[in-house]
């Protein structure tokens, strides 16, 4: 099969904060509809990598391509257009507390220029997808952590992004609530409509839902491959740690 242009290509990205190296030449690709899990110990640069992709953070060296276009040289307008195509789900949900569930989902659509009624349709569809259509008029404060994260997912989904970046979406959740979020993530992965770059410690999710697993340590890619390879025959110490989690 002919090698298609990857949806996302990260090419040798370096980023340091003062003396501290966050990324030391990370390269990776995500194909359209592909789900890639990024794993690695805390502080290894996972969040920084995701933020760089949508230019929430600027990097020092290397380049990132979205749909073949370099992200680095983009101006404000192009960056905003880029962000509308890339959904971002944060560890701490980051909902606008003042706005209702529906308005949170509507925000990006309406301010992106969409007609209000069409936007509402889409927003409600996205909320249905995360099974929260009945909670649309509540405020975030009235929701559980899992529900909030599902609103955040709906907010990203409603934009119909081509790529979704997930930054430990279940890490802040009560263990009993993790499942409802993971279920939705798996559904999305299985749909294969959206490329997904998922930073997670959920080994099971990575094993079942990811096409590929990338292990990051100290700003470098340690290991990369299909989950069976990475978890079945890990070459790195970090990889073996995850495998133990899976087996144990």
């Amino acid at each position, binding site marked *: 099969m002919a090698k298609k242009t990857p949806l996302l290509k990260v090419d040798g990205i370096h980023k340091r904060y003062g003396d501290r190296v966050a990324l030391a030449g990370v390269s990776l690709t995500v194909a359209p509809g592909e789900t890639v899990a990024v794993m690695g110990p805390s502080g290894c640069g996972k969040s920084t990598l995701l933020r760089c992709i949508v230019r929430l953070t600027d990097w020092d060296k290397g380049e990132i391509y979205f749909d073949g276009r370099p992200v680095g040289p983009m101006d404000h307008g192009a960056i905003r*257009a880029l962000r509308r195509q890339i959904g971002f789900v944060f560890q701490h949900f980051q909902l606008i507390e003042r706005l209702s569930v529906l308005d949170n989902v509507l925000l990006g659509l*309406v301010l*992106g220029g969409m007609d209000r009624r069409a936007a509402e349709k889409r927003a409600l569809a996205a909320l249905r997808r995360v099974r929260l259509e009945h909670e649309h008029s509540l405020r975030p404060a009235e929701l559980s952590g899992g529900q909030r994260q599902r609103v955040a997912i709906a907010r990203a989904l409603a934009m119909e992004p081509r790529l979704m970046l997930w930054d430990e979406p279940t890490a802040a959740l009560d263990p009993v609530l993790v499942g409802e979020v993971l279920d939705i993530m798996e559904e999305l992965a299985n749909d294969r409509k959206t490329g997904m770059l998922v930073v997670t410690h959920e080994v099971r999710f990575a094993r079942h839902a990811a096409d590929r697993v990338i292990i990051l340590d100290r700003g470098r890619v340690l290991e990369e491959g299909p989950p069976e390879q990475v978890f079945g025959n890990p070459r790195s110490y970090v990889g073996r740690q995850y495998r133990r989690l899976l087996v144990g």
Partner: protein
Amino acid sequence: MSLLQDGFWKDYLLAVAATILVGALVASSAAHGLDAALDRAADGILGEAGQYDLIVHIRQDYREAAARELPLVLSGHYEGVRVERAITVAGNANFLIDVPAEHYRADVLESLPSLLGQIPGFNGYTWLLEPSLTVTGLRPGVRDRLAGEAAAVPGVRLAVRHGSSVTVVLEEVQDQSRVADALNRLLSGRQLVELGFPPGEGPVDGTEVAASVKDAVGARFAADVTPDGGEDGAPAGLDGLRRFLESFGSRVRIAPVPGSEPPLVGQRLVLQGGSPERPVPGKPPAADHVIVEITHRDGDVAVGRIEQGDRSEIPDTAAATAADGSSDGRREAMPAYRLDQGFVGPLAGTAAVEEPGWNPGDPESGALLWHRVGELARAAAEAAGQVDRWLVLVGPADGTGAVAGETGEATRELAQRLVKSLRSGDGAGAVRETLLTVIMAALAQNAKPDGDGAGSGAPGIPEALSPDRLAALRDSLNRLAEAAGQLQGDEWQDALRSMPEIGALLPELRDDELTRILQALEEWTGAAGGHGPRIELWIDASVPAEEIRRAAEEATGRAVTVRPSASGVVSPSPRSLVTGVLDDVRRSVAALLAFLVAALSLILDHAIVLAAMRYLSVPDTAIRPAGAAIGALLLGAVYGLSGARLPFAGHWAVLAAGALLGLLTAALAERLGPVNAEEIVAGQSLGLSDGQIMREIVVPAGRPGMMVLVNRRRRRFR
């Protein structure tokens, strides 16, 4: 900067503009509200602007009598004149006088003060003519001419002369600055030039001199404004004062040692005085010796005045044989030594001290002098009313606010100041001040415990000038003025005798103090001796004095001395002064409110914007300068628009203060206006612009302020 997108920045500017307008409105209207309240308070004291025309001051104990007499006297002359009682201040009951429209003429108004003289307890008056301007410091001739010219200025209703001033009553308050400008132009365009001619060459025709000088120098305007005292001229008033004061001084008559010439004019003699030590030839005189300056000759006898010491320091050795044989009015005779270059010299003769007191010289000049006394007393009465202000002016340099220490020292200092003010040219003011100096010294003297000479136990002058004393002083001066105005021929001598309190007031001055004042006056008027004719010219200010002198010399063929001075000073009416103070208060209040508005706006509106900037695509280094700029803009504009003014702060200081406030806000932005960084990042991740983030996420979560209000219109999510 992407803040400019989506019109948020426009709204931001709108909010700033609205803050400025509303803030300025609030600041100025609150200040005006206060102003109005204060104004009402002022009206309670002065009556409404234009309601009354004159305040008459009456000694408190005569209040009831005056309340009966005033309406009778005034309406007897001018029907319809209304009299209202006002508050009593500092021992003075005040009555407000309203002159009806049909009598509202300059001649009527000018005649009122003379009617007031008959009112029991009359203690002066203050014009309340409104709206008005007062031109002060005018020589009599200039005053009369100016009154005529001012009355012709458009917008001027009438011009009233009083003392050395002209009060110009306006048609409308709005005309005030225009008329003030016109009067100022008129006054500053002309100078008063005093021409002095040598004595003994006959009179000079002022009108002729003025005409020839005008032609010779090509002046647009030149007029003879020599006052009616005639050629006695400008310093004549001062000279009259000098003679008047001189009459209080002790005269020391020196009979020469038989066979020798009497001492010359200007020679100083040393007397033992109250000192236990006789003057010893070859030694310097002691501080308690009496020093006499010879001022003139009277036949064989030299007459002098006491320059150091006082007649009271000469022990009363009973009527020792006086040189001219009479003991009437003379107390004693004692040896007088010459004073040569600071040392006691040979015996010059025997000295006899003439009893001081009212002794105004020869009868024919007495009447004229008496007339002057009236004028001076009137001026002094006016001046006494201003003692407080004057005391502040002459207050000691050490800033303690009290003239402490030796009275003699204080008097000397006063005399020095007097000479200065005389030289600076305000003749009329100087006369007033001179008399005031005398009065004050006298009062200080009066307040002294008995027998204590110029001792350090003397009370300060301010103590001596209690309101009661001032009131009493003013009262007697006014009565003196009144009496002088009514007397004719040589009735003055009788009147004099009937006014012992005046005599009792002034002779308390030490002789040496009096002499110093006289010397100061002489320094101004030229010499102790007589002087030639003097005329006053009012002429274009642009003509140099030297040219005038040359032209006058050519015209008269005599040597001429010239002394130019300013024409006069325009000042606002008393109410304008009060209004001016109120205006200052209003402006200071407006300034404080402007600060408040700026600080509030910075905290409520701008702190959050500045805090959010950190997360937006604004360079971090731009945040503090932005804060400083917005602070300076807010404070500067509200301050400027509200009409605020602080006496100690110029425009730059206000802008700097605003910038400082803004800088402070920027530095404390995150604490003053907490923003939720996670929400901002979420907005960014959705592709929102900075403006959209500000409008929909940051500002709505902020404190309720102008920004929230303005932003609400265009916000999409509520």
